[in-house]
């Protein structure tokens, strides 16, 4: 019996089809805060943090792989698993951590919009409220799908940093040297940027997003290997782009001692590629990436809470049907926009600061992931292998130590 030769698009090219969650999450990583952090790292420390970038990329690959695996094996999202496996108090702690971290990132996205607006000479007091309303309308009216793609395309402007990195003609042997030779400096400033780097690359919400996407796509343990491929590819690409951003700013701004105070400073690193259009290019990229995340983040956070706490959810519902959902979602956008409008806010510093906060809160999420992914009742035979565990636990402990050192050094700094 023959079935008609019909292109079974759905199961054609399983590897290509799997490309999605990991790649998208990686693209989201190069948002306003990400760019600010990588650009600052390059401008302030030259190539000095490239080695860290390599390690952090490996870290994020490991963490995302575990999240994706949990999603495929259990078929449940992260907050679901947390609620079902941990006590309610611990669940509340983890959710609160994620809420704070995500709220910070939402603020950073609106700051990104403000910064982009100012690059184009538009006052932030016009641009930010406009953007907030736009994003809210787009998501609640359901037309976010194709708009998301537009924003995503805009954010690809940051690939210009790759070009910039080559055109600035850095000393590649020096670049390689710094990449391969770890050199940890015990200074507050250095650690600060290092933790921001970790916080922006291993952003907690990205793990959640990867896991939810895997669940939504209906990936089962048997076809998980395609998804793992996607996660690895996404991570590597994101890591490369981040690396090139650092190289670009390190080659153009660092030698001239230009620290990144405003978005305009970060845009200057694109001059080798875009000349006087560097500002425009950077502004577009920043706008696209920030608008994209400004929509995704509040929605993802609200969904996370609604899954764990059980209130009625859905943006397509009216205020009456899902008051808590709409309330939280709207509240997050309003919060983000409001903070971004505070007069005299040092934009770049807040951007980096938000990711330092993320980095400090990250260990909580990491330990939760490790507990869950090693739970045999949950994961069956798909728990971490002992060697993988050493790697994963090592990462978690290392990140925690770094956060701790930063906190201690900062507090000591207050008293000196």
């Amino acid at each position: 019996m023959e079935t008609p030769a019909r292109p079974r698009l759905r199961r054609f090219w399983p590897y290509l089809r799997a490309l999605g969650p990991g790649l998208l999450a990686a693209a989201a990583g190069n948002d306003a805060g990400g760019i600010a952090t990588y650009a600052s790292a390059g401008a302030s420390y030259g190539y000095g943090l490239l080695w860290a970038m390599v390690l952090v990329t490996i870290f994020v690959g490991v963490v995302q792989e575990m999240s994706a695996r949990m999603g495929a094996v259990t078929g449940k999202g992260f907050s679901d698993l947390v609620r079902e496996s941990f006590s309610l108090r611990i669940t509340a702690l983890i959710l609160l951590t994620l809420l704070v971290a995500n709220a910070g990132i939402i603020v950073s996205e609106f700051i990104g919009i403000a910064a982009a607006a100012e690059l184009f000479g538009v006052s932030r007091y016009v641009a930010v409220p406009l953007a907030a309303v736009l994003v809210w309308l787009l998501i609640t009216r359901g037309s976010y799908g194709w708009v998301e793609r537009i924003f995503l395309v805009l954010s690809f402007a940051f690939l210009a940093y790759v070009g910039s990195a080559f055109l600035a003609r850095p000393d590649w042997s020096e670049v390689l040297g710094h990449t391969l030779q770890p050199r940890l400096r015990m200074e507050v400033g250095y650690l600060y940027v290092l933790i921001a780097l970790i916080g922006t690359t291993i952003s907690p919400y990205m793990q959640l997003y990867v896991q939810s996407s895997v669940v939504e796509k209906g990936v089962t343990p048997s076809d998980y290997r395609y998804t793992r491929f996607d996660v690895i590819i996404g991570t590597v690409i994101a890591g490369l782009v981040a690396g090139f951003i650092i190289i670009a700013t390190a080659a153009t701004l660092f030698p001239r001692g230009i620290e990144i105070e405003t978005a305009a400073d970060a845009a200057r690193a694109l001059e080798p590629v875009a000349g006087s259009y560097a500002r425009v290019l950077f502004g577009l990229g920043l706008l696209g990436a920030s608008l994209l995340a400004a929509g995704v983040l509040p929605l993802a956070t609200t969904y996370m809470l609604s899954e764990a706490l059980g209130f009625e959810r859905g943006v397509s519902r009216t205020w009456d049907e899902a008051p808590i959902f709409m309330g939280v979602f709207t509240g997050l956008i309003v919060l983000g926009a409001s903070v971004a409008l505070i007069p005299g806010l040092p934009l770049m510093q807040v951007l980096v600061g938000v990711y330092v906060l993320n980095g400090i809160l990250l260990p909580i999420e990491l330990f939760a992931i490790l507990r869950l992914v090693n739970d045999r009742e949950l994961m069956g035979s798909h728990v971490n292998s002992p060697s993988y565990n050493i790697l994963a636990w090592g990462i978690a402990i290392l990140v925690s130590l770094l956060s701790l050192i930063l906190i201690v050094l900062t507090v000591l700094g207050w008293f000196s």
Partner: protein
Amino acid sequence: MFFLTFIVDQPVHGKAGEWIGVLEDLIVRIGDERYPPIAGLVVRDGRRRFFVPARHLQDLKGAARLSSSTVDLQSFSRRDGEILLRRDVLDHQLIDITGRRIVRVNDVQLTRVEGVYRVVGVDISARALLRRLGPRFLAGRIVGRQIIDWSDVQYLASAAPVQLKVSYDRLAELNPVDLARIVDALSYRESAEIVAALDEETAAETLEEVSDERLADLLEGMDQERAADILEEMTPAAAADVLENLDEDVAEQLLARMEPEEAADVQAHLAYDEDSAGRLMSTHFVTISAVATVGDSLAALRSMEEVPDPLLALYVVAPDDPDHLQGIVRLRSLILADPATPLADLMDEDVPTVSPNDRAEDAARVLAEYNLLAVPVLDDETRKLIGIVTVDDALAVLLPEVWQRRGTRVFAA
């Protein structure tokens, strides 16, 4: 009646009041009984966990009290047929049958009936969460408001890592559309559990409404004979859509396992493009010769083995050529007419038709424009009547958003 979270982590005392340990969990035997009885306690002392059978339990409220002092404390290990209330039920999701939705257990309600402690309900209110997060002394003042009786919920056996014999009778009460919505919202493991518990007909009805991704995963994950049986229960049009979404090899194997006639029907639908009238149409319709009377037709309908659903009209065909459509008699006309009336007098001859290669949307538009309940599909070359597109299928085509169950779930963490 009292709640689980009030009594866990409280001390457990022996008959003489001596301290034995802390109440970690309650073991419940799940299966046939409407309100599952407590089979025992899990008591924790330091790092060790003991099992105390229910017969040694004197009182559970407040601090648990055992009825003897020398308790044979067996080390606790999980057994089939038993679930732990705190580990496997609390904070997990269940199906609320009456509410036709998925709910999360925020607390478990217990009561003592004729000396036996039983699980009687679950609290799904947000206040229960507040009660658990707040300090103990306030707990008594925050009372849960939304208690669902245990007999009105469907426990999902995949929540526990042991073999269970859960009864799924109540699932049959749910409308397939509601059930499909629930299946989509659950995790793959849980939805597979639900579908496995349904009989083939209900499974087919439910799966027809389930989202493509989940449907493909479910069919590919189940025993092929059963999958083929379910496909046979579906309408050929629905089965064709389903098969197209599956892995090519699996689809071929399933078709091979189906009854040849059924498989041929499905193949016929697959021959048409995905969005065409040919794919959407139903091949199950009633034809009657033009020389028959109203009385004859009604008798014929009543004696038919399987009458199409929906039945909206009869298709009148030429006496010598049963594939040649001459006209349509709407059911309304049939019922109101005198039984002796020949159909040829009653029928509507001027009937719009569509081609199987027309787009489904265009067929739907014809239905809307001409105020029809069904439109016949005639083969392009032979002009034979090969199927009908009914108004309910047309609705599905014209309102695709209603059938988009996946939507923005990607953001659900």
